[in-house]
């Protein structure tokens, strides 16, 4: 919808006329809808947003500096805490970087387990996104449904990885421990439960006319701007760019798996919503294929006792739930890295927000931020 600010009818050239100046409002850092501690400075004219500036750094923990003081195997537990909703993918990205540096080959069973865990984490993360999207737009029920499904995935994680959220399960060389005997039964039960439920959720929220009015045409991100900013993940794919790290730069056993990458072309919040719902369906297909073809064998390659990173530049890139996360490791021959740089998907995705929100209303800021799906500790590192 095209919104034009209403011109002020009061004459401003008389000596007693009030002076009009720009109106700035702070949204955050403590706010129920900013998905973490993010502060947005809005320049408003009435309800129309003329400009927006994100202020970051409220949860900047210095993870990159800490990486220079610990070994590569000690650093994996910090990678969980970046974008904690896709903890498995973060661990995988770091493990890829270390495995490239050391030239380790990961056993096949570990590769299959990695894919299953990552796709379960993707579904769990999208369910939280969906729940919080409903809650931000005023509906509390999706929040409860989303967390109900998250709890089922957390039960599977807890049995195998030992933790629900910050798992630290995928490590350089493979995975930490083999799966339990009823892992396959649990995962298949989850797939059977979740497949019809996605359709129900799509009608519940997506079929709601109020939701459609609030998201169609709101916050349109063009493909050129998205490419130039380095946006990735569902944010980019909803703008029509076919880029998924699992397809364009595959890793693990993804070349052998048969799945589609959902794309939309409009680039508005509705498109981002549809892309994420479709991604959840594709993740179920991936999990089923990986589970059906899982071989037996060891789950972790043998690493040397003291892991020394050779001199050079190594980069591990994976598709996290929100986009492409990259771990850049510069080694110098000792057991501690010389430099660790985390390429955060949310950092680049949030950079799109100031451009796409111009002309929208204040209530749309919440809708657009929700569909951009940012997790602030990943931005701030």
């Amino acid at each position: 919808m095209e919104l034009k600010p209403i011109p002020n009818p009061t004459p401003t050239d008389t000596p007693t006329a009030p002076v009009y100046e720009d109106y700035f409002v702070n949204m955050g850092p403590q706010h129920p809808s900013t998905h973490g501690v993010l502060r947005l400075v809005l320049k408003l004219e009435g309800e129309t947003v003329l400009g927006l500036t994100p202020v970051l750094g409220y949860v900047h923990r210095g993870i990159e500096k800490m990486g220079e003081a610990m070994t590569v195997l000690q650093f994996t537990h910090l990678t969980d805490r970046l974008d904690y909703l896709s903890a498995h993918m973060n661990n995988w990205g770091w493990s890829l970087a270390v495995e490239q540096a050391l030239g380790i080959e990961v056993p096949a069973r570990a590769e299959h387990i990695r894919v299953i865990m990552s796709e379960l984490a993707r579904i769990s993360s999208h369910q939280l996104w969906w729940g919080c999207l409903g809650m931000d737009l005023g509906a509390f029920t999706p929040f409860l449904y989303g967390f109900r499904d998250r709890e089922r995935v957390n039960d599977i994680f807890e049995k195998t990885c030992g933790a629900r959220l910050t798992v630290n399960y995928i490590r350089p060389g493979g995975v930490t421990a083999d799966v339990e005997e009823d892992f396959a039964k649990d995962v298949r039960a989850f797939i059977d439960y979740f497949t019809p439920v996605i359709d129900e959720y799509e009608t519940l929220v997506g079929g709601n006319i109020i939701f459609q009015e609030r998201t169609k045409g709101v916050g349109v991100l063009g493909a050129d701007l998205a490419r130039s900013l380095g946006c990735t993940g569902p944010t980019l794919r909803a703008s029509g760019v076919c880029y998924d790290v699992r397809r364009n730069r595959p890793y693990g056993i993804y070349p052998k798996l048969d799945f589609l990458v959902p794309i939309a072309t409009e680039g508005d919040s509705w498109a981002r919503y549809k892309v994420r719902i479709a991604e959840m369906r594709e993740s179920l297909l991936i999990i089923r294929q990986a589970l059906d073809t899982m071989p037996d064998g060891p789950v972790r390659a043998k690493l040397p006792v003291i892991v020394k990173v050779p001199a050079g530049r190594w980069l591990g890139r994976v598709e996290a739930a929100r986009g492409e996360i990259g771990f850049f490791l510069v080694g110098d021959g000792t057991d501690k890295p010389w430099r660790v740089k985390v390429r955060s998907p949310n950092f680049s995705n949030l950079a799109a927000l100031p451009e796409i929100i111009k002309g929208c209303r204040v209530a749309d800021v919440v809708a657009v931020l929700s569909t951009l799906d940012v997790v602030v500790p990943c931005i701030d590192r």
Partner: protein
Amino acid sequence: MALNETDATAAAQVAQWENQDPQGQAPPRGGFVLTQIDRVLTWARTNSLWPLTFGTSCCAIEMMSVGASRHDWSRFGFEVARATPRQADMIVVAGTITFKMATRLRLLYSQMPDPKWVLAMGACATSGGPFFYDSYSVVKGVDRVLPVDVYLPGCPPRPEALLHSLMLLQEKIRREGGSRRQRPLPPFMFAHTPIDPKKEFNPA
């Protein structure tokens, strides 16, 4: 991060912190009627503690899980999680507190009406957690910023652990009495830089 300019205010804060009563808050004196009224008020307060929605990082997800349907904290009275500190009874500090956020957190705490309580959830809020070593921007425990009542370790703590800590807080309130004196703020050496949105707006 501007340091507190005057040594006098910093010294006063330190003195107040060190001279506080180590046994906690004594129950109010009064006859039978007043103590019974106090018991009723305490019962009402413990069973209806409304938390402020404050979550910085991973512990916030477990706090949201406690608010969801499997482990439901509204059974215990934490029904309404308010977004504004003016209407909240307690604050669950879930997540890492950095120096940049700490001054804003003190402002939030001072905006809460008395009586108010603080629960430090997670290892980061208890002591700095996994970021204790080598991090330059993490406050090593929220008890350097706010007076904490209950500490909950874990990274992140299980939802059942959070429920247990909430029950411990309720027991503490029953023991101390619901109406209490203010607890002094710990001395925190960084002043609050006022937030002026016009200065932070990037016209580019």
